[in-house]
């Protein structure tokens, strides 16, 4: 088996060409750190936006003068709908009481009111996965068609923004991740290509002695994966520094940062991603050998 020799040969080359290899490792480490920070941002935004639909509600205003029985029928009808998570009935008296509570600093606004102008209403919370612009429109139309319903109010823009925000962040993150991954591949590609050309005479001798493509390629692939691996390990160190800087230093000044979640499982994947991208870069660099 020539594999031990390939490892020995790759290690020898890593040491002999140390400066170009160190430079590549640092570049790969920086790139993987950007990947980590992007994933971290994406993860936290996903967490934040996943909580937004929980706050979304629709208000169904009932016509004035409908009976208690009719109101109960509407409530029962809504309770049975699959898209509705929970409902809360607000009578016109409760609504006025809440309004007065809200306006307690300016009670003169409500002075002179002879009768309660507010309508009874039902507050609906939708299930998380139904909070999309199109779903909310459909549900709104359905509610308006129910006998006894006067009008439906909901934050149309909120539903749309939640979706738009999520989609934009996802798209931008994917573009960043792919660009950086392509960058890592390019760095290992360039390094391995340079090393390959530097060893061109040596490789010619290998070929004349009967070496196969695999024998010649393996040390370069090992070297590329080593660059990716060490880049990954260095980026773990960078990510940990970032994590501790946020958790212990910056959060003292900006308390909201305390809510950020940093999944440490991400870090374990970094050397593996580094090795994978390093191998891809090396394979492209060496290509097909003409024997």
């Amino acid at each position, binding site marked *: 088996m020539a594999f031990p*020799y390939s490892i020995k040969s790759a290690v020898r080359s890593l040491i002999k060409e140390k400066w170009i290899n160190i430079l590549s490792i640092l570049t790969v480490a920086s790139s993987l750190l950007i990947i980590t920070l992007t994933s971290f941002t994406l993860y936290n935004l996903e967490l934040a936006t996943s909580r937004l639909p929980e706050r979304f509600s629709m208000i169904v205003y009932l016509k004035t003068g409908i009976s208690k029985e009719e109101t109960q029928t509407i409530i029962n009808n809504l309770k049975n709908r699959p898209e509705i998570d929970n409902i809360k009935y607000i009578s016109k008296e409760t609504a006025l009481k809440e309004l007065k509570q809200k306006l307690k600093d300016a009670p003169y606004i409500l002075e002179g009111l002879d009768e309660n102008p507010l309508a009874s209403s039902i507050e609906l919370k939708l299930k998380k996965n139904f909070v999309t612009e199109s779903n909310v429109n459909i549900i709104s139309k359905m509610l308006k068609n129910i006998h006894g319903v006067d009008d439906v109010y909901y934050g149309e823009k909120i539903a749309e923004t939640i979706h738009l925000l999520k989609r934009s962040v996802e798209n931008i993150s994917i573009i960043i991740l792919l660009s950086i991954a392509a960058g890592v591949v390019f760095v290992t590609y360039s390094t391995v290509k340079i090393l390959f050309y530097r060893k061109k005479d*040596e490789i010619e001798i290998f070929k004349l002695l*009967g070496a196969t493509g695999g024998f010649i390629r393996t040390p370069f692939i090992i070297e590329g994966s080593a660059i990716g691996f060490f880049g990954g390990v260095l980026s773990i160190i960078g990510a940990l520094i970032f994590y501790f800087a946020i958790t212990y230093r910056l959060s003292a000044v900006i308390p909201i940062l305390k809510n950020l979640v940093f999944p440490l499982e991400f870090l374990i994947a970094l050397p593996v991603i580094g090795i994978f991208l390093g191998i891809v870069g090396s394979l492209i660099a060496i290509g097909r050998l003409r024997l």
Partner: protein
Amino acid sequence: MIKFKNVSKFFDSQTVLRNINFYIDRGEMAFVTGPSGAGKSTLLKLIYLDEWPDEGEITVGDFHLTSLKLSRVPLLRRSIGAVFQDFKLINNLTIFDNVALSLRVRGINEKDIKTPAHEALKKVHLRHKAEDYPQMLSGGEQQRVAIARAIVAEPMLILADEPTGNLDPNTATGISRLFREINIQGTTIIIATHNRDLFKGSGKKVFQLDAGHLIGEEVG
């Protein structure tokens, strides 16, 4: 063992070898001679497929080179030990590693490499230089390392291109004697040389090339 049938080789419009026919049997030692530019090196390169023939058929052992798949070229080369005019040693490897390389490309285990590599170096009287690097050796010593690398895997055929070209007469005689000893053990050897002293009185086949044509076959 080695058969050339109507073999021609051209570089662009220039004819390097034209209609070459010869046969060398297993265990034979033969010489290819002629002036510089006669096509000696190209003829050897055609045998280990560093160059491909443009016309004709070449057979080396069980390999039919004209129809040989690219994936089998390493197998052909492993059955041949080549000694190059410019030695082709790897300067950043020790003498031992240069010789061992021939075994490593064949996928031989590291533990099975040490003994044959040292044996080969012993045959060329360079066992004591195993840990040196090529640039620390004289031209003659480097040539002997190249021979050790060629013989270490006990190939069926050894090709040597001007093996004494850069050497003084005494060293050349030593190298010549070494090839004869290897041949006695049954290895087929072809040597391309313009040094007539190498084959004079040897009793071996000598093919004479001139301007790409095989102009004669004699016994040295």
